[in-house]
């Protein structure tokens, strides 16, 4: 991902995704990731930083959202907009969402972690366990007895 040239002072960090694609990212964006920050603090600032757990398409998403997040800092409207985007992603492609979440967790980007987790929280709000399974393609691996046990335990909340 090419950097914008207007910020003259910003340094460019080069990162490589697990599938070999090379990204050039502004330092200010890259430093959102605590993982990259730590790596740079150690010694590998001048080399290409490998990201063995993140594929290129997911990394694109991460960068994109990092930038959006940086833009919307003081903009309530944008904040709302960004928050509502999660539903689309979760509905259409929960698998990509999971990968994004994993990457964000691995890269240790606090702001995106909050955002993506909030997406899921908003998405699951008020949904039944079965619907959650359907939507996230999760298999029900409970025995009937287990299911009954949990229901009994939380009956007060669901009656």
């Amino acid at each position, binding site marked *: 991902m090419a950097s914008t040239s207007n910020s003259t002072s910003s340094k460019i960090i080069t990162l490589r995704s697990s599938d070999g694609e090379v990204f050039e990212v502004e330092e200010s964006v890259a430093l959102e990731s605590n993982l990259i920050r730590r790596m740079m603090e150690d010694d590998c600032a001048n080399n290409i930083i490998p990201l063995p757990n993140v594929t290129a398409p997911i990394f694109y998403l991460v960068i994109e959202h990092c930038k959006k997040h940086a833009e919307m800092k003081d903009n309530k409207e944008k904040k709302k907009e960004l928050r509502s985007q999660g539903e689309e992603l979760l509905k259409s492609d929960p698998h990509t969402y999971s990968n994004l979440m*994993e990457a964000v967790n691995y890269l240790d980007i606090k702001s995106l*972690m909050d955002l993506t987790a909030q997406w899921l929280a908003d998405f*699951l709000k008020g949904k039944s*366990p079965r619907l959650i399974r359907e939507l996230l393609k999760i298999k029900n691996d409970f025995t009937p007895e287990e299911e009954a046990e949990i229901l009994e335990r939380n009956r007060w909340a669901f009656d």
Partner: protein
Amino acid sequence: MALNLSHFAMYSMKPWESEMGSFIGAGDRFVGERKGNTFDLEMEDFYGFLGRDRGNYSGRTCELIANDILDLLPSDPFGMDLSVAAFNEIADWLEDFEVGSQLNLMMNRAMAVQWENGGVGFIGEREGRSFGNSQRDDDLEVKGSCGFPGMEPAGEGEGSCKSIANDILDVLPSDPFGMDLSLATFSAIVDWLEDFKMESGLNPFWWDRGMVLELDAGSTGVNKIPNSSSLEELGFVDGSSNGESESFRDVEEFLSLNGEDSSRVMSLQAQEQGEPDGDRGAPHDALLHALGYLELKDLLSAERVCRSFRSAVRDDPLLWRSIHIDQPLSERITDDDLLNLTRRAQGILQSLSLVDCSRITDDGLRRLLECNPRLTKLSVPGCTRISIGGIVNNLKAFQSKGIPGIKCLRIGGLYGVTEQHFEELKLLLNADKWQLPYARKPQFFHSGYSLSSRNDEWPLDIEMCPRCQKLRLVYDCPVQSCQGKQSAAQQCRACTFCIARCVQCGRCVNDSEYEETFCLDLLCLGCQKQQSGCI
């Protein structure tokens, strides 16, 4: 009053009656068996005409379509000239019938199945074509699917639904409205419907649109889960309460009844979506990171999703370190439930907020405090069965053995707080360390305690009102001109009894224009304008 045929559009909502889904056969079969016999067999189809009751699965789409075709429909095509009374009777009967009979179950099943097999064949094909595509074969398909006698194709899965159909046959009265229609009239109805379909170019259009709307709601191109999303939007799943909604359960039952067909449908579905059969599996570990962001009720739902969610929810005391109970759970939770819930924190519960929990008692609070020695923040606004005396006593017992002890207490508008209580509370909460009142953050009034509750570290929310000297929640004024006044007597700072405040922005409304809402709240002029959208 003429029969309101505008709801004929409801037929578009019955894709499960297509010849593709064999379950669908339920509807077809039902009608088919009684082909041409009496009028009563039409009753199920009358759901369409009177469709509001069935609106739970189709309301929205139906409305959309209904508007378009309203104008095109004749007002009383069969010259039935039904009176209002007869019409109401039909509606009532249908309602009763729906509640009491097995048809209801069948409908649920049919609905659920439709959801389950949604993407299959019929719809799949349809999606491939464009909106409003009026190819002949489409028409035929549609015709077949509408479930009218004499039109339905012999569905492959017809037999499988026999049992249901037979049950229902017994339950149905033969001519509930005493309409005593002759065979001729009956055929006329059928013919008319057929004509209507064939003639109006509209038909394939709205039919298609109904389909697409229903099945494609909210999907975003990738369209992997159109069915579940539409399901939700149409209100199949109430989502909130019973978690396991009936129709869902019925899917499984129904599928197991029709083992053979279901596997066929499943594989079709898999093909349709281009995904392997067993695409469901354990949840991605990454999802577990988000559990901490869920509200209590959703967290309890997540616990019921699968084993890995369950253990994540149960075994992680950090998720339970701070518990906030609000609507809708606040009215349900009892002392025992609360105690069980706090046990999940395994002793590290730090913050407990109970908003309007009307079933929690002083004794419940006592037991809770005994089990959770590390609690530092307690908030009980609107918990009507908790008394100030109880709080003081509980706190006395707790502060002597609690490890850090309660630091922040929020009691909201609790009644009967005397000066003695206030002094005792101040003592118990280490009042000597309190800062001067000026150092605290200003508190603004807002409807709903959860928003107005002080989120600072101030130990106690109530204080002496500067005007009436009563111990209450005291609010500041957000209006700049009011904040400037220095003398305590003039300051715009008091309980809501002394200074009336706007329920939205919290400003004083004594001297300005305001309106009283239905709930007797006050709304200032500025907020009124904002609410009505003319800022």
